[in-house]
């Protein structure tokens, strides 16, 4: 019996240590060899969740890479930015700042199992101890569970020599679906996401602040953008959104394209443009950059004026 315990105990310790070594080595190899380089002419980055993912077709916007990813919170946006910024010659970063990014639900987008499993494997090799500890503290059981997924993903990367990560962090995606105004109105009636929300995700906002600070430290300009949303999109926390902007990000320009005048047929749903909508909007946004948006004294006013012109054309 004692022999059994001694033997199984020692084998278990060897196996556990072996497993830990394997996890560390895999993550270390990826950390050392990964490349975050974007196309050489990249000057502007777009970062955010699904709204910018479907709105900015970066093939139509000069010198810009859209690194947004659906359902990605500021926490993971920050991890991405931290790796990409030092390796590229970026002049400005556009960060999505919209209604659903401040709500309590974003906490779940940071450490809930589904999102943890989706995003942690991308970033686990590169995250600092502080952020890893943060996730471990918030959801230790799922964090431990996701370590296996992360290790497998990174191991696969080693086996296939797939170290070029930068552009794979996100990107423009198109949706072909079209909507009618009636469909969007009905959707708004059943949108619990923002209506029912009373809380705010301080954690997510903290990481937005970290992104802003990080860009400032590297002398990279930061702009908040709000991608086009249909008039029926539920914005019941608009006052909170603006209050946080004034309170915490007073010096950051908000380039608000929220009311970009597109008909329902250009939307896949109230919060997301479809491919046709994205083409119109991306061409317009590119034009805006060419007209010198970033050299304007008051960029917010410039955007407002330009939006009025769109109204007249449409």
């Amino acid at each position: 019996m004692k022999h059994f315990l001694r033997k199984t105990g020692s084998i278990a310790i060897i196996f556990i240590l072996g497993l830990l070594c394997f996890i560390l080595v895999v993550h270390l190899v990826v950390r050392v060899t990964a490349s975050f380089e974007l196309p050489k002419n990249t000057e502007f980055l777009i970062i955010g969740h699904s709204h910018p993912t479907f709105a900015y077709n970066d093939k139509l916007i000069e010198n810009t890479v859209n690194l947004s990813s659906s359902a990605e919170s500021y926490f993971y946006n920050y991890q991405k930015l931290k790796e990409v910024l030092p390796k590229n010659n970026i002049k400005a970063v556009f960060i999505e700042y919209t209604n659903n990014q401040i709500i309590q639900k974003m906490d779940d987008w940071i450490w809930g199992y589904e999102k943890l499993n989706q995003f942690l494997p991308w970033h686990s090799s590169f995250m600092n101890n502080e952020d890893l500890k943060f996730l471990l503290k918030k959801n230790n059981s799922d964090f431990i569970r996701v370590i296996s997924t992360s290790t497998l993903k990174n191991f696969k990367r080693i086996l296939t020599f797939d170290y070029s990560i930068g552009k794979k962090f996100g990107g423009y995606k198109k949706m072909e679906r079209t909507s009618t105004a009636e469909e969007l109105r009905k959707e708004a009636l059943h949108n619990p996401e923002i209506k029912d929300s009373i809380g705010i995700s301080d954690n997510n906002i903290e990481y937005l602040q970290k992104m802003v600070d990080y860009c400032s430290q590297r002398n990279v300009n930061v702009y908040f953008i709000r991608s086009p949303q249909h008039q029926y999109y539920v914005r019941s926390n608009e006052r909170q959104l603006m209050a946080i902007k004034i309170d915490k990000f007073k010096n950051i320009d908000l380039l608000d394209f929220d009311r970009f005048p597109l008909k329902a047929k250009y939307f896949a749903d109230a919060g997301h443009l479809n491919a046709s909508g994205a083409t119109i909007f991306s061409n317009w946004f590119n034009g805006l950059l060419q007209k010198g948006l970033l050299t304007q004294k008051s960029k917010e006013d410039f955007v407002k004026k330009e939006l009025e012109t769109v109204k007249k054309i449409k």
Partner: protein
Amino acid sequence: MLFNSIDFAVFLPIVFLLYWFVTNDNLKLQNLLIVLASYLFYGWWDWRFLSLILFSTVVDYTIGKSLYRENNLHRRKLLLWTSICVNLGFLGFFKYYNFFLDNFISAFSFFGYKINGNTLNIILPVGISFYTFQTLSYTIDIYRNKLKPSDNFIAFSAFVSFFPQLVAGPIERATHLLPQFNRKRTFDYAIAVDGLRQILWGFFKKIVIADNCAEYANQIFNNSAELSGSTLVVGAIFFTFQIYGDFSGYSDIAIGTSRLFGFDLMQNFNFPYFSRDMAEFWRRWHISLSTWFRDYLYIPLGGSRGGTLMKIQNTFIIFIVSGFWHGANWTFIAWGALNALYFLPLLLSKNNRRNLDTVAEGRFLPNIKELCQILTTFLLTVFAWIFFRAENISHAYHYIKEILSLSFFEIPKFDHMSRAFLVCLMILFFISIEWLGRTNQYALEKIGFKWNKNLRILFYFGIILLIFLFSGSEQEFIYFQF
């Protein structure tokens, strides 16, 4: 408590140490520890349903004793039927109440009568189908004078609630398991190590094969209306491996765990996917259930002794009841009936006991004929699993209809295909190990015995590593719902 949980990883060593170090000298105390540990194990899920197990235990213990004392045939029958009614009554209420009510209402409305009846929000107690059958076997065997009743309530309680096999079998016979609670267990190093090895292989089957196949099987079955026939075939194959990995994996963990405590449970799966015909498949799949039905239903009905009509009738009864045992849905009944149709030609042509040996025994590979037989049996099984997995008959019908359409010739397409390729590699590895170990109780039993010690340790480490790497898709055991 799930086998694949942190809770169980803490629970098992504690019970193991208490069992062998604290209660080792006292059999009663050791059995009591098993009862307490088993109730804790079960209560971890929902303590309220412990009362059901306790009630079932008390009823069968009392009836068993009365049956043994009673000589009057009428009274003996009455006692037996009391036990059957109590056990099947619970099972019927928790598992089939809503099904029968719904179908009753539908049948009446079909003839133009409207009946009002409210279905109840009933939670199905985990493992009820398993321990009910186990306790029934006890009473029936006493009735048949094959078994003496237990005169030790604690030992009997431990037999009913024994935690490794409480929630998903193997469904043990009282004649095999109960005597083990009445004799002193001694620790055997070789058996314990073998138990650990079987647990390891069980985890591999569950975590690497079943849980990862489940991801794709669920994705494809849940979106079957939008997918091509070829993709649906892939989905059915994934489910085929999922259900085998899930259930036989559970059985391996249960048997391995029991061995750590000095108990011997029956083999529940004997490499069924290497069967050469459906009769062989049913001798190798969920053995504890099929032999239960054989002994307590098929043979009492007359088995295959009567005329052709009798054989057909009994075959259908046993397969349909077996299907219905799995759940209150017409899909399970259809699955059972389909298997009866597969089995009948073999029975009627007296070919059902043609393949009693292990395929390609003493050879490394099967010959062409054996390979074709294995593949045909496998495909028939895959087809039957579609009914088993489908939400309802209509779902199964549309699923099969799409498979039989021209879209069968399209290239399969579903989400995360590159990862699915990795899972397919794991399935290949799994099949290879199963093939190499097909003459043993479980595949890993003797693999690597002749290797260098370090190589063997490396091999086991490789399996642990695979379990770790593929552990991200944790799912519940399928058979918990039965």
